[in-house]
């Protein structure tokens, strides 16, 4: 006889004319929230939550009298009982997760279960499965009934990857929350209901969440877990950091994920470690290398020194001439900013002569139209990108206000000469010739990285192989299409900028990365190679750094090596060097190669005092 009863976990029940097994019961003053798992043959993975007494739950069988069954059924039940054991200090969800059981990936979840951590920094090397580790913690907490609302903040390009990983591996239904979804939800929901509060596991872009019109609605939801993916982007004094901290400091659990937590700047690292801190409880850090966990893959790094052509050397000397004119004039005023601005111009040159020509051309136009500087006059509304899908981080920076001469005619003359030299060099760039030679040597898929979108589009016009572009200006569908095409086209070349490729898994069928220019931040270099050097990469990974030897890029390489060494040691012992120091030092090295020891010493001392 079926009759309404108070259900208990494990009971077989009938709800809405279907059979379910009760997984969890939470009793409140006047009602109970009951979690049900599908009990039929075809819906064992279905999960429903109902509220009694509003939903009628009929217990099917509460007779406790033993039952004699056949031997086979008994052994099956015995297996279920043993396999379904829930040890107090063990993991519940990992058994059913579609993951390989690698011990090091279980450690963070065990730390949470053992009560050692509520705020974690997962800082394993690139490609060791930080997403899986974070998802394992989330699924474990969900399985224990400890959490209900999860917010994953990630770069826009990784939202679909998160949704897919959570669903495919952990059977967690996550929802990508963006302007489009919220707009749809706002139409369906009653007035006054916050759409964010209707989502259990929300995957959103940090850049979208930080927007002033979005942030209050997100912050008003009591998130149990906040995951910040690629957390190094939320370090230092930035809007991203402020948004991530505001959300994380109200969450019961905080997970920060980054393979490159430390880029040589101690203050940045400290600000990252403080995201979500509410008391003295320390941040629990997991930092494992591939050799630590015994999955060291083979990686070969090739520094390909490219000898600049006569036209490129001429362009370089013209740029130095312009730089020295600016430095002479602004010797006593804001010299550090001038140095940085000149450094950026050099960076553009090292990326491609074409991109330098673009910048110089824009500057000449602004001089001709009597605009002092081509900087944006006011903050722009995000009208062009209402859904928060694109980024401008790979667009060339505006011409800095510190980079100009008092004598306009002289500046025009210098820049005109520089522009013609850059155009001449762009006609036959040696780096592109070298890239073409590299591409001729193999028919494998390759990823070519550059910092700037205009360089990327320039390469696209120059190379002969089938090429796919991936930059910050692409929308979600375009990005997905690009990645799909790359994965299915034999011998394809993916031309990507850092801004668009962060966190992507490109190691299936691709093992070579070419860096057209060296980024000044070592973290970026590691992130680039990490796209193909990941767990599951069966072959030796090749990373090619194209270094223009006679235009000062070899000195950038030296600085990078030094900075990587500092970052490595700083994870254990503090030895700070700030980004600005580093970039200024690179800029100084590029602008004539004089020694930078004095300045570095000064900065280090300053850093130590603070």
């Amino acid at each position, binding site marked *: 006889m079926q009759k309404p009863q108070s259900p208990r976990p494990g009971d077989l029940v009938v709800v809405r004319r279907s059979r379910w097994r009760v997984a969890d019961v939470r009793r409140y003053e006047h009602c109970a929230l009951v979690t049900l*798992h599908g009990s039929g043959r075809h819906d064992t993975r279905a999960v429903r939550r109902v509220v009694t007494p509003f939903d009628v739950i009929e217990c099917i069988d509460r007779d406790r009298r033993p039952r004699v069954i056949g031997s086979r059924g008994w052994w099956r039940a015995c297996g279920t009982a043993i396999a379904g054991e829930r040890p107090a200090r063990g993991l519940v969800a990992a058994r059913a997760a579609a993951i390989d059981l690698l011990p090091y990936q279980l450690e963070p979840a065990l730390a949470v279960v053992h009560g050692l951590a509520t705020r974690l920094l997962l800082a394993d090397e690139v490609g060791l499965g930080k997403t899986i580790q974070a998802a394992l913690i989330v699924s474990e907490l969900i399985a224990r009934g400890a959490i209900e609302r999860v917010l994953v903040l990630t770069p826009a390009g990784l939202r679909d990857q998160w949704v897919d990983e959570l669903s495919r591996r952990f059977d967690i239904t996550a929802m990508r929350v963006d302007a489009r979804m919220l707009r749809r939800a706002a139409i369906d929901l009653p007035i006054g209901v916050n759409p964010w509060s209707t989502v259990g596991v929300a995957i959103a872009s940090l850049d979208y969440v930080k927007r002033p019109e979005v942030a209050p609605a997100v912050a008003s939801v009591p998130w149990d877990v906040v995951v910040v993916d690629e957390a190094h982007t939320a370090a230092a004094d930035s809007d991203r950091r402020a948004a991530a901290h505001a959300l994380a400091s109200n969450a019961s659990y905080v997970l920060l994920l980054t393979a490159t937590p430390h880029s040589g700047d101690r203050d940045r690292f400290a600000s990252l470690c403080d995201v979500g801190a509410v008391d003295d409880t320390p941040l629990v850090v997991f930092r494992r290398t591939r050799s630590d966990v015994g999955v060291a893959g083979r990686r070969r790094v090739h520094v390909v020194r490219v000898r600049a052509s006569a036209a490129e050397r001429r362009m370089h000397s013209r740029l130095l001439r312009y730089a020295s004119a600016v430095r002479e004039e602004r010797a006593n005023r804001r010299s550090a900013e001038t140095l940085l601005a000149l450094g950026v111009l050099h960076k553009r040159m090292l990326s491609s002569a074409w991109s330098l020509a673009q910048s110089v051309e824009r500057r000449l136009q602004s001089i001709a139209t009597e605009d002092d500087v081509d900087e944006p006059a006011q903050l722009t509304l995000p009208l062009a990108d209402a859904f928060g899908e694109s980024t401008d981080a790979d667009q060339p920076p505006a011409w800095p206000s510190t980079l100009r001469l008092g004598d306009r005619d002289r500046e025009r003359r210098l820049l005109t000469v520089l522009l013609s030299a850059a155009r001449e060099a762009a006609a036959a760039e040696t780096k592109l010739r070298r890239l073409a030679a590299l591409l001729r040597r193999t028919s494998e898929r390759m990823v070519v990285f550059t910092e700037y979108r205009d360089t990327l589009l320039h390469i696209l016009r120059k190379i002969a192989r089938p090429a796919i572009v991936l930059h910050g200006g692409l929308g979600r569908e375009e990005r997905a299409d690009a990645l799909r095409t790359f994965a299915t086209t034999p011998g394809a070349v993916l031309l990507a900028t850092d801004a668009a490729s962060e966190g992507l898994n490109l190691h299936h069928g691709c093992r070579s990365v070419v860096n057209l220019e060296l980024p000044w931040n070592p973290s970026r270099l590691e992130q680039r190679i990490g796209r193909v050097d990941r767990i599951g990469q069966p072959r030796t990974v090749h990373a090619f750094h194209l270094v223009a030897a006679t235009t000062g890029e070899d000195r950038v390489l030296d600085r990078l090596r030094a900075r990587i060494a500092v970052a490595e040691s700083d994870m254990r012992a503090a030895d700070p060097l700030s980004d600005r120091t580093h970039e200024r030092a690179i800029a100084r090295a590029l602008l004539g190669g004089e020694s930078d020891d004095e300045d570095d010493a000064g900065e280090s001392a300053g850093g130590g005092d603070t």
Partner: protein
Amino acid sequence: MKTMLVNLRAEATREAHRLTIARAIARAGTRMPVDRPVCASTPDRGRPLIARVRTARRRRLLAGRMLFIWQLASEDAIGRTIATSVVAMLLRLDPLPCGREAARRLVDRVVEIEARLRDAIDAELRTRQRELLDACGADARSRLVRDRAIAARHSSSADRHGGYQAGLFDRRRERAHRERAIEMQAFDEVAQARVHAAESAATVSPSQPRLLLVLAP
């Protein structure tokens, strides 16, 4: 900035081993490929299941004893199962019934044993139960510390105690202040509810051992 490194390598290796075995056991007898994980299943909280051994080898192994498999469990204050442990027990008993209605008489015997030996069994399992209890709730306790810190931060935040000057003719600041106060109260309620939930989860108690399976010779 306070950071801490924890080394759980040994525990993680043990746990991976345990999970591998659990996956293999759950997969045994099915045609699922080895690399495919099994679906999570809720332990059957229905009736105890009894079977009689069919092979001579197993009968020899039992040597006239009955195998009882019990489940120990810990529950939190809202009745959720936090942890379970399976304990096997061999009991030597009088010869079991056979012939007609043997099954019914076997069931009666198990019911009688369960009722008669309940205290002895409870005493036998008490140590295991205590071990299970001690290991439970560590995660909830650490969460409770953080939730309390969040609640305390809210209640002492500068926004709450900051004064404001109401305008003589313009009510906008007054309205903004009122809205802020409502928002603060909502935050407070959420924070307190969380602390309450974490306290409930951290309060762990044992539930009565439950007979799952019986194997009779």
